[in-house]
């Protein structure tokens, strides 16, 4: 078991023929993901990377039976691609694109809510995220595949490279991941921490969850409430941005402390109170999980590829 993606996922890549789309789709295929086609308006009927290209998502879904979308479309058009994928009938949409205007995401969120209110179930992950991977089954994103290993630790994070850091520590401890979800660093996004925690809580394979947060917003505080009320599985947290100056956005549009809200201290306090293990030093998160789960022997450091 896993969350969001598994070996049966049929992946459609939006923006397949672009530089980013081509490169990362190739990586996903090499990892073993079932990529079934691409969407680039105007290039329908052609082939790219040995895959059929379609003009619209609807054409692609009808022809290939795709059930998940991976979006690399540039920021001015990405919001539209998300809605196109939802309308075409895929159930999981992963948007990698960085730099989508917030107001576009406000409109996307409203429409997706309307779609879900009609009874269909569409889940958006991102935007501005590394994607989702279920190790050994399906990689839909830009994360390096080899740092992952099939296992029982669920990982959810707002940041890309920080996720890799946590994943690598888990793998170096001889453990593996059930699924890894990058929810992205934008202020208005699809899936949030609580949504991911719910899926991990319900997933029989997942035994523990690592949650990597950062300053800004109140998603970590919301997650803390869910952890306190509903989670029976152990949760390990790190919150980045303890030393960030207020009022400056630290790379991610969402990572900003404004008017005393979204501070590191408030998040750490809420999570610790909820019963999560909060590590102060990021370098210790893998060891903390291993200690709890009773890890197999740590892999020797030289065994890296």
């Amino acid at each position, binding site marked *: 078991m896993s969350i969001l993606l598994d070996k049966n996922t049929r992946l459609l890549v939006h923006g397949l023929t672009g530089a980013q789309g081509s490169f990362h789709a190739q990586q996903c295929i090499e990892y073993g993901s079932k990529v079934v086609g691409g969407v680039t308006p105007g290039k329908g009927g052609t082939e790219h990377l040995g895959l059929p290209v379609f003009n619209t998502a609807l054409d692609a879904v009808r022809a290939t039976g795709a059930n998940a979308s991976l979006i690399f479309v540039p920021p001015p058009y990405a919001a539209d691609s998300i809605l196109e994928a939802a309308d075409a009938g895929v159930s999981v949409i992963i948007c990698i694109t960085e730099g989508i205007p917030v107001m*576009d995401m406000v*409109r996307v969120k*409203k429409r997706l809510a309307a779609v879900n209110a009609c009874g269909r179930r569409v889940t958006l992950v991102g935007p501005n995220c590394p994607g989702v991977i279920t190790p050994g089954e399906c990689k839909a994103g830009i994360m*390096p595949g080899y740092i992952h290993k099939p296992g029982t630790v669920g990982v959810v994070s707002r940041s890309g490279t*920080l996720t890799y*850091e946590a994943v690598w520590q888990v793998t170096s401890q001889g453990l593996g991941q059930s699924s890894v979800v990058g929810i992205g660093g934008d202020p208005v996004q699809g899936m949030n921490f609580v949504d991911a925690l719910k899926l991990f809580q319900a997933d029989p394979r997942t035994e523990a969850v690592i949650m990597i947060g950062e300053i800004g917003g109140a998603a970590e505080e919301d997650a803390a409430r869910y952890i306190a009320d509903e989670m029976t599985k152990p949760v390990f947290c790190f919150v*980045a941005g303890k030393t960030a*100056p207020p009022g400056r956005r630290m790379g991610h549009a969402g990572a900003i402390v404004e008017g005393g809200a979204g501070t590191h201290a408030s998040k750490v306090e809420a999570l610790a109170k909820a019963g999560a293990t909060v590590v102060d030093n990021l370098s210790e998160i893998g060891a903390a999980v291993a200690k709890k789960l009773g890890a197999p022997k740590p892999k020797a450091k030289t065994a890296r590829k």
Partner: protein
Amino acid sequence: MKLLEYEGKEVFERYGIPMLPRCGVLRIGDSSEKLNIDGAGPWVVKAQVLAGGRGKAGGVKLAKTAAEARDLAGQMLGMKIVTHQTQGKPLTVEEVLVEHAAGIAREIYISVVLDRKAGSPAVIASAEGGMSIEELAHSHPEKIVRMAVDAESGLLDFQARQLAFDLKIPKKNFCEFTLFARQLVKCFVEMDANLVEVNPLIISKDGRLLAIDSKIVTDDNALFRHKDQAAKPDHEASEIEKEAKSIGINYIGLDGDIGCMVNGAGLAMATLDTVKMAGGDAANFLDVGGGANVDQVTKAFQIILKDPKVKAVLVNIFGGIMKCDNIAAGVVEASKKVHIKVPLIVRLEGTNVKEGKAILAKSGIKIEQADSLWEAAQKAVAAAKR
């Protein structure tokens, strides 16, 4: 991007927000004759800086005569302002706005913000304006009105009425207010703003509804559809920050002495935190980006070393798609081009890490390598203290 008060007011003008007539903006080097001060006073002279609390710091002055207004404007230019929002650093006043003043009968607070959780705009307002809304939210949360708004339909009539009643707007100004509130929301949506704030909105002694101040923060991601906005200078960014931005590097100057180069915003933030835990202070936040190449790495070094405070440089790269051997080659290349006189600590992890480390070891450059982020941070702190 944060807009200065007068820039925000120029935007407000387009939305018909009621304001006092402005006499012009004076910049350093301008003659005060440039100001178009006529009619009856009094006037108000306001320092154009991006920090709240400027009034208490001497950045807002009242003038009874035109001559006094010109004098005050001249004096205020070049003045240093420190407020609770400047983190102890003085801001230099480079522009001054002069406008007509009005006697204030009542002050109201109103803003449109992005409600991240709901994923929609929201109006925040209080019948008690003028003071810090954060303080009011803390001391008297019941005095704050909060209303979710649909971005596509804007503020609906009944919502505008609800706000007007909640804020106890006088009958005389009622329709004026509801129109103002709807226009403010429209401005927020159309400008792709993250914040539009009027603090205070006043009822003047002669019964007029007027926006006295403006604060607009726009969404950098939406600049592609606001060409006029994109052409304007970013008042908040330092010269180094602007230079970094122009070449696709995300850089924010900080107060410490350890220069940091990291890939990814989250890891960059975590690196600053780790440096602090190890007993040091970072000189900057720098995200070299996910697809950095030799050129980007070289430029990143140049930018970091422009800061004279830097006593050591910490490179922390988690190679994913970006391979460690490429990064290592970039570091070697950069160190040939840029004379790095301070100690250099490099932590590489991820794809092709062995090859990357070998390249660094063979290069003959003085580099301290580290196997983990924690080790790297400790080495950098020790090096900066030497």
